[in-house]
């Protein structure tokens, strides 16, 4: 069996988000780059399957050279081989097109991704890749059981979950719930040493269009100062919620 993780590299969740002076670009100064949190759940699930079945695990990432240290982290956690498509993933369609082109001559049985990246939150690249390749696809995956070629997949729906049956190969966009939080892997020293020797191949991007363009960024409007209510006069709070906020 062959497994692929389509990896996103994102700013650490504690990052302060700032923009360049003309507010047209995200300011990457001082940003710590990490594995996209949703991808971590998929990576861990992929590792569990690899350990159980002896599957081979590859990682592919569309992004600049600076992201290689994060790609190495997935190798240190246990992936066998990585590919970096050397392009800025500025547009979801462009990124998906690169990944679809990469998949053309490959034969992965299971393709994992994260539901969305926590920077641009597009929630669409795995689905676009499925659309472009015609592969089977499940979004927002919170459970997976494999039985030979058969996959039983749970996905999140509004207020609950849906259990689906499908067959491999399939693209799965994982998220929190796919594995337990405490199961998430971090690299150990031996893994880090081994990762140095694992192959990380750089691939030139294919010609592709961008369909969207970010032209401006701003911070969300600041909240006005909080109205504090004395804990012994909660009727004032009820009054504010009823007459001012109009929520009760």
């Amino acid at each position, binding site marked *: 069996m062959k497994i692929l993780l389509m990896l996103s590299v994102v700013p650490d*969740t*504690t990052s302060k*988000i700032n923009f360049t002076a003309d507010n047209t670009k*995200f300011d990457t100064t001082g940003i710590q780059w990490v594995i996209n*949190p*949703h991808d971590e759940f998929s990576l861990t699930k992929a590792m569990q399957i690899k350990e159980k079945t002896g599957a081979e695990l590859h990682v592919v990432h569309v992004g600049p050279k600076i992201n290689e240290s994060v790609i190495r982290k997935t190798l240190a956690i246990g992936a066998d081989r990585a590919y970096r498509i050397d392009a800025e993933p500025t547009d979801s*369609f462009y990124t*998906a097109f690169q990944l679809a082109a990469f998949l053309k001559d490959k034969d992965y049985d299971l393709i994992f991704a994260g539901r969305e990246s*926590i920077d*641009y*939150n597009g*929630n*669409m*690249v*795995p*689905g676009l*890749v*499925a*659309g472009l390749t015609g592969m*089977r*696809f*499940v*979004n*927002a995956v919170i459970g997976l059981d494999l039985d030979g070629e058969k996959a039983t997949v749970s996905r*999140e*729906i*509004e*207020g*609950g*979950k*849906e*259990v*689906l*049956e*499908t*067959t491999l190969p399939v693209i799965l966009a994982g998220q*929190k719930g796919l594995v337990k*939080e405490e199961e998430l892997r971090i690299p150990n020293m031996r893994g880090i040493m081994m990762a140095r020797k694992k192959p990380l191949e750089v691939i030139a991007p294919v010609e592709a269009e961008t*369909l969207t*363009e*970010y*032209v401006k*960024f*701003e*911070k*969300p409007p600041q*909240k006005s100062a*909080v109205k*504090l*209510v*004395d*804990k012994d006069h*909660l009727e004032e*709070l*009820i009054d504010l*919620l*009823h007459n001012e*906020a109009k*929520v*009760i």
Partner: protein
Amino acid sequence: MSILIFAENNNGKVNKTAKELASYAAELANRTGDQTVAVGFNLEDPETLYQYGIRKVLNITDETYKTFNAKAYAEAVAEAAEKENASVLLVGSSNDAAYMAPLIAAAQKAAYVTQVISEPLQTDPFTVKRKAFSNKAIAEVVLKSEKKILGIAKNSYGIKENPVEGQTEVFTPQVDKNAYEEIKSVKVEKATGKVSLSDAEIIVSGGRGLKGPENWGMIEELADLLGAATACSKPVADMGWRPHTEHVGQTGKQVAPNLYIAIGISGAIQHLAGVNSSKNILVINIDPEAPFFKAADYGVVGDAFEVVPKLIEKIKEFKAQH
């Protein structure tokens, strides 16, 4: 040309998101002179959409579509878009919509932008505002393709009544139903009788300050009283005090209710990222220095074990009078 909305339903009835999308479509059509059309599956009350400015509803009344299937729905909606010569397709941000829409975008080579919070700032070039960086930024994005898909963020646009003359026709797409065999739905599990986080107008959320799962009784009582959903912070879910499905934050659920009540939650940046689209935030915390107060509209400094029972009493008194 037309503006098409994907009208979702709850048990056959047009839902709140569909009304929001209809309102958005009507406003946009006012500017562009386009026709407003909706497509839905087995809608029982398609005429509801006329109230919000939709002039034509394509109702797909085939039993096959009783359950959602992303590929089958995508193909059917895409076919409706072709038939109506739609330049813009509007979808919501439910799990179903987010699953289906990229498949349409790939097939039509349409620019697709999610988390949209504004009407187009301009239509040439077609520019919208969206949330990005987990609500820590707002971005202006240009959609460059001829066909466009907008995913409207939850509770961001609002419902505007705008009654028009409408008509409904039964639509039968020529979809390959094989999609239902490729990915087969075997079971749907929904918590019954509880308000779901994504539908909730009010959310009552608890953090580590509540000291243990045994103390959630008052959180649930307050939520029941307000018709609210319950939620929690990441540490609470990680410690197993509450199910993971209740975790609200950057890596959990992102919510945007009319009122978010945070009890015993300090307000870490990752938590705020999941809730700061809420219309109103009420923070109850014993620590006056808790960072959450900076992001709040209303605050009470005090021990949750003292404040919450009192608040419950006050709300009961209020409800008795109203």
